[in-house]
Structure formats: structure tokens, C-alpha cells
């Protein structure tokens, strides 16, 4: 597929051990189109976060990407980037939001300074430009721009998470990776945030690689879903198909482990 934004091919990652290596990701291939939300589902330890780290080149030893693996973003070979190219690549092309992202804000810096850090490093923005961009981004995630003078502890958990998402999008990345971005939040707040991201990606056209263990939420939010089981991508397809006509046994089992609001189980 030449029209895809992100293309992962035969990605294989080992965690190197003293006696034995552990294959965390095994021959995983998938594509994400521009503006698409692609979900990776699976239990803890199935390798979904390892894939996310590899795509942003944030993996560190003992994780090792095996030869023959390929990750391309907008035609560029991600695995071949050197340190200087990586600096341009991260944030500007790919941004990441983690589960405890709200705790990744620096508690002793005002929100505007944290935006300035990112904007000055990657775009050489002046204070004034950074402030303008901050106001614009905060408005996008429904936070009053006046509050950029506040410190992280003055915001609720959901607001902090929205601020992190706003920082992520400040440089107009092509791909935003979200690893369980709302797991620590209440359902109503989770819904508000994801719905906002859904609107923003339609306006701004970025793609999302979305990782969660909550299959129901994933089907609501994603266009397509891949299901991972011990390092292998066992099934991928449109979300309604993954929900209504799961092909793989494991996908069916996953569905059957979620209680349904209507009583009984989802699967």
C-alpha cells in the first residue's frame, strides 16, 4: 500500500536475556492510512506497547529490533534514522501520549513553559509565538487559554491529560501514538477526551495508533483494529467486523471476557 502513512512490515523485536531471548513482537505487519485510527488490542504482555515504542524509536536495550523488520512513516525509513534525524522525527512527525501522561508534566513549570520547551526545541519558536500557539492548542482541548499561567497541580487529572494531548499536537504531527491514554480516568472524562480527539483528527487529518485492552472502547473509536496474542498479530480488520464477525478464536475469547451492560457477556 503506497497511500498509507505508517507501514509496519515483518516487525520482530526480541528482549535480549542472559540465557534466553524473549520474542515480544513476532513478524507483525500493518498499515495505517492518513487520518485513520488504528487500534492494537490485547492483554498485558502481548507486545502492543513494544510495537508503539518501536514506531517512535523509543525502544531501548534490551529490546532489539531484528533484521528484516521495516517501519516506514510517510515514505521514510524510521529504523534508519540517525540521532539528528530522530530529533526532527519525534514530536514533529510522531507524538506519543502514555497512560500516565498526566504525570509527565513537570510539576514546577507553568503550562506555557512546557509548551515553550517543545516548540522552542523543535520549531525554534520565540516566547511570543509559543504563547500564541499554546492558547490555540488549549482552546482545541476545551481549556481556557488564560490558564496557561497555571501549574499542573491546579488542573484535574482529565484536564492534565488533555494538556498533554495538546502539547502532542502543537507541532502538527502526522501520527499520534496513544498507549492507554484514558485508562486512569473516569468513563465520562474518557469519553469526552476521546470524542474530542476523534473530532480533531477529522479536522486536522492526523492518524492515531491507539492501544488499549478495552475492546468495547476500541470498537467505538477505531476505524480498524489489530488483535495481538503473545507477540503475533492474529487478526486485523474493520472494527465492526472485529466486533460482529471475529475470525480468530482468541478474539472471540477476548469478547467473551467482557461483561455487557445489557447483562451477560459481550462475546
Amino acid at each position, binding site marked *: 500500500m503506497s497511500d498509507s502513512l505508517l507501514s509496519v512490515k515483518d516487525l520482530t523485536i526480541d528482549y535480549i536475556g542472559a540465557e534466553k531471548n524473549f520474542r515480544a513482537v513476532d513478524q507483525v505487519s500493518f498499515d495505517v492510512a492518513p487520518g485513520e485510527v488504528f487500534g492494537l488490542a490485547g492483554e498485558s504482555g502481548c507486545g502492543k506497547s513494544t510495537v508503539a515504542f518501536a514506531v517512535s524509536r523509543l525502544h531501548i536495550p534490551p529490546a532489539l529490533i531484528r533484521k528484516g523488520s521495516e517501519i516506514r512513516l510517510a515514505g521514510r525509513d524510521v529504523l534508519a534514522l540517525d540521532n539528528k534525524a530522530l530529533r526532527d522525527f519525534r514530536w514533529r512527525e510522531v507524538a506519543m501520549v502514555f497512560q500516565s501522561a498526566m504525570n509527565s508534566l513537570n510539576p514546577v513549570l507553568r503550562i506555557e513553559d512546557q509548551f515553550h520547551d517543545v516548540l522552542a526545541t523543535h520549531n525554534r519558536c520565540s516566547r511570543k509565538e509559543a504563547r500564541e500557539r499554546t492558547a490555540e492548542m488549549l482552546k482545541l482541548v*476545551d481549556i481556557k487559554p488564560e490558564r496557561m499561567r497555571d501549574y499542573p497541580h491546579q488542573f484535574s487529572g482529565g484536564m492534565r491529560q488533555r494538556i498533554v494531548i495538546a502539547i502532542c499536537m502543537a507541532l502538527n504531527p502526522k501520527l499520534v501514538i496513544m498507549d492507554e491514554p484514558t485508562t486512569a480516568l473516569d*468513563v*465520562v472524562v474518557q469519553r469526552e477526551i476521546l*470524542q474530542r480527539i476523534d473530532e480533531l483528527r477529522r479536522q486536522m487529518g492526523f492518524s492515531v495508533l491507539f492501544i488499549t485492552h478495552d*475492546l468495547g472502547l476500541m470498537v*467505538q473509536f477505531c476505524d480498524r483494529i489489530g488483535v495481538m496474542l503473545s507477540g503475533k498479530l492474529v487478526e486485523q480488520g474493520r472494527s465492526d467486523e472485529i466486533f460482529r464477525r471475529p475470525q480468530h478464536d482468541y478474539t472471540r475469547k*477476548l469478547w467473551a471476557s467482557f*461483561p455487557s*451492560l445489557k447483562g451477560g457477556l459481550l462475546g
Partner: protein
Amino acid sequence: MSELLLRFDNVSKSFGSGTYAVHAARSVSFSLDSGRALAIVGESGSGKTTCARMAMLEYLPSAGKVLFKGEPTEGRRGRDLAAYRRAVQMIFQDPFASLNPVHTIAYHLKRTLSLHRPDVTAKDLDAEVEKQLATVKLDPALVAPKYPHELSGGQRQRVNIARALSAQPQVLVADEPTSMLDVSVRLGVLNLLNEMKTTRNLGMLYITHDIATARYVAEDIAVMYSGQIVEWGDCGSVIDNPQHPYTRLLLSAVPDPERRFSDASSRLDPKEADAVRRAAAMDGRKVLTVGERHFALASVG
């Protein structure tokens, strides 16, 4: 057969005083019968864990009464308190923090048995430990000599359940027992709790933020917001026919694969959601009777 075990009668709990006071529970009333589970559902900070702690007598209510089988619980000391602790047991949220890392699983269970089960003699201890582990479907020979770090989260939570059950309690207070477990083992723990509730005729107070799970384990449900129970009653009736605006908001936000974000009809309006939450935080003045076992606070305005 069904017996009234635990009753909260207009219980309030505040922390701090004056302008800094936090009213964690406001006039909370509910009752828990044997062989039934009551789920308290709410978001973080809604007061559900405060209620669990008051049921455990860890906090004393600022106002109102907690009654056990019709008897007041306040002022219990010594033997009275020990008897209560035996009858009301708790399962904690974090299976990693609730077992002592320097002791074996067998030790944890023996300690509960020697504290709460005078009928088990010293020479029967080992046999009783085996029996308790077998009830939660763990292999005693394999698990008993192990330390907590050698077990998975799901296994640890089963040990916690075995520990609580070995005191032969009448009430089980479970505070988010599955939220830290992996999806594939959650259901096993829920099924185990369900089975124990039925076979041992336990009254279960099930604290959770996940309303779908609540329906799976509980007969009754109480939806909390900002320290108040805004709606309570039969689980099916509350979920299928919600009356309070906050219950409706909560239900509309629950992840549901049937309602995609891309469908305009399933969108949630953040401004409306804010208004609902603001109104729900005010003092409920009137209780509406929706059905025989279904009540809701009248919404303000």
C-alpha cells in the same frame, strides 16, 4: 432465608472542617441482605470507597448510623470489634500491595485462621489452609509454600479471596477487586465471587467504577456522585430504565461497541455533561419512587 446484614442509615462523612471540609458521603442509606450483592458505582472521588471503609469501621461516620443485623456498630471494642471484623471481611483493589511480601501464602491464611477461627486447632491448620486454597481453585501444594511475588495478579487476588473467606464472614466488602487484573482473568475472579456469594449465602458490597461489571455480579446497584447515592435499586431496572440525569450520563459514556463515535446519535455533549454533574452535586431534596425496588433523587430544577 435472606437476612438483613448491613444497614447504612443516613450516614455522612466529612474530612476537615470549615471551608476546607470535604463531604465524602452525604446521607447515604442502603441495606445489604445475605445472598445478595449490592454494587456501589461511581467515579473516583464519588465517595464509594469512603462507604466501604465505614462498613469496615475504619472510618467512623460524622453523622448517621451503620448497623449490623440491627445492632449499632459504633463504640465496638475488644471482643465485640473482633467479632465484627470476622463477620465483615474485605478484599482490596491492589493484589500486589495487599499481601505481605516477606511471608508465604500459607502464613497469610494461617494468620487469619488463628485470629478468627478458634475452632481450627493447631494440628488442623495445614489441612484447613489446603481446603481454603482449593475453594478458590488454586492448587494448594503449588501455591501454599510460595511468596506473593511468585504469583500472578489473578492468583494473588484468589489468595486474597481465600483469606477473606477463611474467616467465614457473613459480609464481603470488595473494593474494585478486578480493576488491576488483566482482562482475561477478571471474569474468573468475578465468577468466583458470584459462586461464593450463592454457596455461602454472603452479603457482598461490591465497589466499582464499571457499571457493566456491576450488572454481572450484583442484584442491586447504587449510583454515587459527589457523596450522594443519586439512584438505587434493582440492577436491571436502574440500568435499563435510568431516571437520574447522572445515571443516564454515566450509562451513555460506558464503552459500548454498538455505538461508534462516528454516529452523531451517540455523541456526548460536554457542556450538557458538565451541567448534569453540577446539578447532581447539589443536595438531593426529594426521593422519587420509580418501581418497587428502584428509587432516584429528584434532579434539581
